[in-house]
């Protein structure tokens, strides 16, 4: 085989594959709108603070001014108004979004990783199936709150020491959420793997002599992608909410770290007096989840070569 004939095809390879995915993805209108919205949202939380340069925790040190600045409705100075101690809500939304989105994404990844691993192992290896499924039952039955309390209690200081207080907390929160929310995806993946395992192409790989490890990576995992994507989109929503509950219980970030979940919680408290305050984080969270959901749909279609080919 000469280089000349191989080269053009090789060149074509990586590009065409991802372009195909992209082309198909673009056909999914919902997913495209969602992607644009999510990008806007990401820009809002990432680039926003560079433009809107108010510190989310800034309280006017002059008490007289501070008192005057409390509980303001939207205005040019504070497009989303201020909270009960005069902090700028727009800045808090931006800053909070960073944390919420980061936590949600990473926690979801952790949950999906654990869930998929357990599900694949249980589905593929009959011998450990019973054990892993009983483990899943156990986690389902465990009371979440004490579990989180214990985790935080055991590891917070250690994590803070190694990674610094905010990174340490971040890691711990993400792990805590991940560790307590993988069970459903594990079940789904297991069911899927049980079926996939009997597919002829897995048998074909065995006949080639592919070891189990690579069969799983190459043949099983890519094909459980679609249920995992569904679980992932649901996981994002759950993670944002769980983070807010954690913060609320004092298990999350330090109290001066705004997150969407916490803003929502605080907003609900003030719902009678300042109903708009619950609206911002409420919209942000719901919109994120909706977007992720539609993107997940689009991605699932786009990643499936069968649908893509149509």
């Amino acid at each position, binding site marked *: 085989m000469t280089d000349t004939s191989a080269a053009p095809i090789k060149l074509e390879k990586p590009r065409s594959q991802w372009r195909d995915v992209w082309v198909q993805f673009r056909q999914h209108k919902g997913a495209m709108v969602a992607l644009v919205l999510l990008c806007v949202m990401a820009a809002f939380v990432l680039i926003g603070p560079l433009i809107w340069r108010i510190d989310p925790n800034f309280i006017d040190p002059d*008490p007289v001014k501070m008192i005057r600045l409390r509980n303001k409705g939207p205005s040019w100075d504070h497009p989303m108004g201020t909270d009960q101690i005069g902090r700028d809500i727009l800045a808090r939304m931006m800053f909070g979004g960073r944390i919420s989105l980061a936590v949600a994404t990473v926690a979801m990844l952790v949950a999906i990783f654990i869930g998929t691993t357990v599900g694949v192992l249980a589905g593929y290896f009959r011998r450990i199936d019973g054990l892993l499924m009983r483990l899943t039952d156990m986690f389902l039955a465990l009371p979440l709150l004490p579990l989180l309390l214990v985790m935080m209690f055991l590891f917070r200081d250690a994590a803070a020491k190694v990674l610094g207080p905010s990174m340490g907390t971040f890691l711990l929160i993400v792990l805590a959420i991940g560790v307590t929310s993988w069970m459903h995806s594990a079940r789904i993946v297991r069911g899927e793997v049980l079926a996939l395992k009997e597919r002829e192409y897995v048998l074909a790989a065995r006949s080639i002599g592919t070891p189990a490890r690579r069969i799983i990576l190459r043949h099983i995992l890519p094909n459980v992608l679609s249920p995992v994507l569904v679980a992932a989109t649901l996981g994002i929503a759950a993670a944002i909410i769980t983070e807010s509950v954690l913060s609320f219980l004092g298990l999350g970030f330090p*109290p001066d770290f705004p997150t969407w979940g916490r803003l929502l919680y605080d907003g609900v408290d003030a719902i009678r007096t300042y109903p708009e305050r619950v609206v911002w984080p409420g919209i942000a969270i719901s919109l994120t989840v909706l977007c992720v959901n539609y993107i997940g749909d689009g991605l699932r279609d786009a990643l499936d070569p069968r649908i893509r080919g149509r």
Partner: protein
Amino acid sequence: ERGADGELKILYYQAVSTLNPYLSSGTKDVEAGSLVLDPLASFDQDGNMVPRLAVEIPTVENGGVAADLTSITWKLKEGITWSDGTPLTSEDVKFTWEYCTHPEGGCAQGAKYEGVKTVETPDPLTVKVVFEAPKPYPYQPFTGATAPILQKAQFGACVGAAASSCTEQNSKPIGTGPFVVTDFKVNDVITLEANPNYRDAAKPAFAKVTVKGGGDALAAASAVMETGEFDYAWNTQINPEQQAQMEAGGKGKFVNAFGTLVERIEINMTDPSSDLPEGERSTPKHPHPIFSDARVRQALSKAIDRNVLVEVGYGAAGRPTCNLVPAPAYQASDNTDCLTQDIEGAKKLLEEAGWVDSDGDGIRDKDGKKLSILYQTSVNAVRQDFQALVKGWWNEIGVEVELKSIDPGVYFGGDAASPDTFQKFYADVEMYANNFDGTDAEPYMSQYLCDKIPGPDNQWQGENVNRFCDPAYDALVKELSSTVGIEARGALVKKMNDMLTKDSHVIIPLVDRGRFSAQSNSIDGFIMNSWDSELWNVADWSRVK
């Protein structure tokens, strides 16, 4: 006329878990218990003691208190019967003491009976409490809603280890109070009806009472002030804007009364650094590297605007204070120095103390060490606002502040294994509120004795959380324990209060928090009381006609 006014609906959003105040001293439980059980005497809205089952308040003057202060003799009113119709006797009173002091009973009010040697019953209507040593304040036992009289006949079998398994007794105690329990759903709802044998034939006006639990302060306030579902809601601590909005509803009003509850910042006098070996953190072995200098502590206090805190967090339910003991008047110091914020003064103090911002990062430093502190408190919306505000002011004077909020169950739980209890104080400053029972501050002030510092030796159970230790203070505590006479005792308390606040600034009082409840406009006769149960005079309540 008894029972003429139908049903009274009371809301305790922290639900009542038992009606026996000896098994749980949670305020909600004690107050609900006061619907049924009576002490010998209680406190009125001004903190004065008023007889209840007793004929009068014994004093040295009327001979009720022995001249050597070693005993007090109460006379019971004649003809008082329990709700089951049997007469109340001094045996019941004596039994109550035995019940609470049984070593295996786990009585929550043990402190009320401390120092009692024996209780004698010379006749069915006379009770003599004999103390082991002279008691300058002999009114602790059997007074206030926390120490009511139990019926011997009912609780006879519930002494000691059996106390907690007497479910029926604990949830439906027989009492002398205006109401009788008919149904008790734990942590949910209690149904009571008028006591047919109540000592005042015309009372109570209500035939039935429901005490409901659940929800939060906001919902509780709303249920009285907005929807009118309830007649009275306890502890409706909500933020001032909401207070205003709800009052506009016109269905009810908020009532408040100030007592001794003070929200404060305690300053750790010992080093909480996590670099220290476990067991030495936050112990007197290592003094605090920053706060050993009183000027720093004072600067922190000066930088705070307490008026703003009240306006943001409490509104009518609080007032700024500089004192640890804000009431009653005879023992409250009149210090008001701290009430105006003084940022410049605070900065000056820090500069004097050698803390300057040498590297221009906005944070002061000294000898290469940054003026950076960890500020912890429990999870609570108001406290988090306070944290944010105080952090802002402290940042303004060049102090870096890291905030931490802890689940109240952990923070106040006192679990020796947890690093997050307020006693362990693994932080530089911490915020919480505390008060004392009744009107006498002696036990409260003696919390700051050197030997009450929490540490590994006492499983971190000491009460001297800021680890203040001053022999002069200890001497004052000793003096107080043998001083008789309201005035003299008051003077001593003031002095000690100033030592802890104005002079040393180890405690930075912030807000004097009153009791704050919501009352429907249709209820008459309610008198708010911060010294006893808020339901202390429920027998006098009636429905507006």
